[in-house]
Every structure is written in structure tokens, then in C-alpha cells.
């Protein structure tokens, strides 16, 4: 049976990075449970445009949970109350008739607000850039399985690589730490022989950039892995610590 709900939205509005923002309250009626959270915001924006008001700015792109573009801190959780999904995969059936839903942008010193619910996550790109390149032999197509990789390592590298760089880990962390993101990006290469060549230089450069950009220090609260839409584990953070410490002690 289709669920139809009426909701109240408390949405963060902020005209620009330096302007003081505040919450705005809107009523939405007759929202179907099959509506995704972002479609619900589209409906609200249409309503706002008809009323001659400014629509709410929010990030979104693929709307199938793989691009890492959508964000939103919904009712105390990054990507909303459901587990292992991004905001675009969250559906209104998770809310009840008469609910008040609070929608906020990611909050962290390293992610300044651009406008309304949109934050600047360029800091993540800077960390990736600092990581540099991996050496790949070009030329003829190599044989499959020419480089033996244990199944366990291959699986774990794939799990780490599932990070979409959305920033939910930073948004959830009381320390504004980017360690889960950086650890996933370091791990996906460190676990494979192709990534070992520059591994030491990579981990040092990425951590140096992460610190420089003003992300906090991890205190192992595990909030990141509990909120990660891709279920990236903090065992990656242990690996990152291990990679960094051995690289530094070998200097």
C-alpha cells in the first residue's frame, strides 16, 4: 500500500560562505513514500519557485548512490537515518506523517558552506592530488593474472575502493577528521602490488595535505564507519596509521 505523508521541513538557508545562515520552515503535503529524499526537495523547490522564492541549493548528480555528490545531514545523521545508503537513495517511507525533518549541510571547518545545503568539498580533491600517480607499464596489453594477488587482498582493496568521497565521515566526526576517506584512498592502492611502488611517498604526502587543510585528529570514535554509505571499515584507518608510521620510521 502506498504511504502518503505530510511533513514539516526545517532547512538551513545561507546566502553565501560569509553570510550568517538560519533555518527556514516549510510544509509539504501529500508526499508519496516512494519519493526519494532529493525528489522531495525538488517538489519543495518547485513550490518555492511558484511562490516566487529562491529555491534551495543542494548538491546532487547521479541519484543512484555512486557519484558521491549528494550530502545533507538529516535528523542527526549524514545521509539520513537509514544505513548504507546515500541521501539520493533515501526514501520518504522512512518518515512518518506529521514528522519534522531537519536538513543541514555538512559542518566542518574544512568544508565551508557555499550556499544553503551545498558545501565546498574541494579539500578532498586536494588530498587526492597530493597522493600523486601510480607507475603503470604501458605498451602491450598485459596478461590477466600476470601479477598474482591473493583473493583476500583483492577483496579488501575493492572494499576500500568503494569509497565515493562524499564526506559523510567528516560530517559525522566530532573531530572533523578525514581519516576514513584518506585511509580508504591509501588502502585501495597499498593493498595491491601495483600501488606499492609509490606507497611511502603517497601516504606521507596525503597525510601532510590532510593536516594542512585543517581536518582534525582521529580519536577512533567510529562515527565515520557507522555513517559511511559504503560501509568502509576503520580497519583502513589502522592500515593508514601503519603505512604512515612505517614510512616515517624508515626515513
Amino acid at each position: 500500500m502506498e504511504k502518503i505523508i505530510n511533513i514539516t521541513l526545517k532547512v538551513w538557508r545561507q546566502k553565501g560562505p560569509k553570510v550568517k545562515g538560519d533555518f527556514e520552515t516549510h510544509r509539504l503535503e501529500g508526499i508519496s513514500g516512494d519519493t526519494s529524499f532529493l525528489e522531495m526537495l525538488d517538489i519543495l523547490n518547485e513550490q518555492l519557485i511558484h511562490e516566487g522564492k529562491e529555491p534551495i541549493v543542494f548538491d546532487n548528480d547521479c541519484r543512484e548512490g555512486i557519484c558521491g555528490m549528494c550530502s545533507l545531514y538529516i535528523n542527526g545523521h549524514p545521509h539520513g537515518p537509514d544505513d548504507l545508503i546515500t541521501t539520493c537513495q533515501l526514501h520518504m517511507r522512512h518518515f512518518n506523517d506529521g514528522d519534522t525533518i531537519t536538513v543541514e549541510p555538512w559542518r566542518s571547518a574544512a568544508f565551508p558552506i557555499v550556499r544553503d545545503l551545498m558545501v565546498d568539498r574541494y579539500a578532498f580533491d586536494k588530498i587526492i592530488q597530493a597522493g600523486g600517480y601510480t607507475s603503470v607499464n604501458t605498451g602491450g596489453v598485459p596478461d590477466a593474472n600476470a601479477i598474482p594477488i591473493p583473493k583476500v587482498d583483492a577483496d579488501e582493496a575493492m572494499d576500500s575502493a568503494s569509497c565515493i568521497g562524499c564526506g559523510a565521515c567528516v560530517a559525522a566526526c566530532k573531530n572533523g577528521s578525514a581519516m576514513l576517506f584518506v585511509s580508504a584512498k591509501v588502502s585501495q592502492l597499498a593493498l595491491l602490488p601495483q600501488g606499492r611502488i609509490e606507497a611511502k611517498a603517497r601516504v606521507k604526502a596525503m597525510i601532510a595535505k590532510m593536516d594542512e587543510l585543517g581536518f582534525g585528529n582521529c580519536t577512533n570514535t567510529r562515527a565515520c564507519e557507522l555513517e559511511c554509505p559504503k560501509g568502509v571499515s576503520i580497519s583502513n584507518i589502522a592500515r593508514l596509521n601503519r603505512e604512515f608510521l612505517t614510512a616515517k620510521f624508515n626515513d
Partner: protein
Amino acid sequence: MYWLFNSSIGRKFIMSISGIFLVLFLLFHLSMNLTLLFSTDAYDLICEFLGANWYAIVGTLVLAGGVIIHIGYGTWLTLLNKKARGAERYASSNKTKTEWAAKNMWVLGFIIFLGLVIHFWNFWFNMQFAELIHSPNAVTQGSELVIALFSQPLFVVIYLVWLVALWFHLTHGVWSAFQTLGWNGKLWFSRLQVIANIVATVVMIGFAAVPLFFLITK
């Protein structure tokens, strides 16, 4: 070695090593306390051995260094993290189901520090310190001091509260120290958490045994 002080993982490494050092000290301290349950004479012998002798003083200074580094770095990192979090708080708060202790390590540490001040005033000030300044009131029979203190229920309660705070601090701190050193994986995560809970519980029950024993028997 400059990276130890100016990189996030370096600073966490210092927190981890100093924390492990303090846990090892707690276990050493505990083993001495437990002799009190069997023989006050044996305890007094240990107290004499650890009085104002040069090795005990060197040990005390090293320990003080560990405590100062752990508290100092803990406070500094907490302040850095508050800054990294930004000025704006979430209006809908944070509903992620994390361990309570993990998010309150500084507060728990502060309670432990307050307990430490009382503990120093109760014992160290009357024993090693008094001996060092050649005070005529210096107590060498440690057991008398312990028994006199713990026949007062108020102090037993204060020490128990202190130990509960320590228990919470250790349940997070012990596994977290290994995680920071890089010793963790999907398999070891639950093992380390179990080890942390065992260490925390052994420390709490062991230290609580002495005050409770004297409160009940005297």
C-alpha cells in the same frame, strides 16, 4: 623525528605510547596494592623500598613525564579537534550510535586527573614527598595510612567514582591505542575490544578491592 610533533598521526602516536605506558604502570601499581589483602608487612616493605630512594625518585619523574605528556597532548589535540569541527554545531545533534566513552575521553581524563590530585594529597604528599623534604611527619608504614583512609566511607566512594571513570577511559583507550599504532584489522578489531574490556575490568576490580576490603573489615 619532527613529524612526531607536527603530523596528526605523529601526535596520536605519542598519545598511544604514553597511554600504554600508563596502563602498564597501573598494572604494576595494582600488583603492589593487592599484597595489602594478604599481608600489611609485605606492603610496608614495598612502601619502604619505594620511598625516597634514588631509583624510586627516577621512576616517579619518568612517570610524571608520562602523565604530563598524556594530559598535555590530550588537551591540545582536543582543542585542535574542536577547531577542525568548526564553529557551527548541528541543530539536530549527532545521533550516530557511537561508544559513549569514545566521545568523552577528555572529560573522563579530567575526572581521573582530579582523582589523581586527591590521591597525591592522601598518599604521595605524606610519604615520598614528606621524606624528600625531611619532614618529621613522614609516614613510612604505608598500610596505616591506607587503613585509616578507607575506614572513612566518603573516601571509599570518591575512589570508587574515580575507578569507574578510569574503567570507561580504558575500555576505549586500550583498543584505541593499538588502532593508532596500526595494529588492527577486521579480525583483530573485536579481539582488541575484548582485551580492552578485560584490562579495564581487572584494573577497576583490583583497585576497588583494597578500599572495599578495609571498609568492610574495619
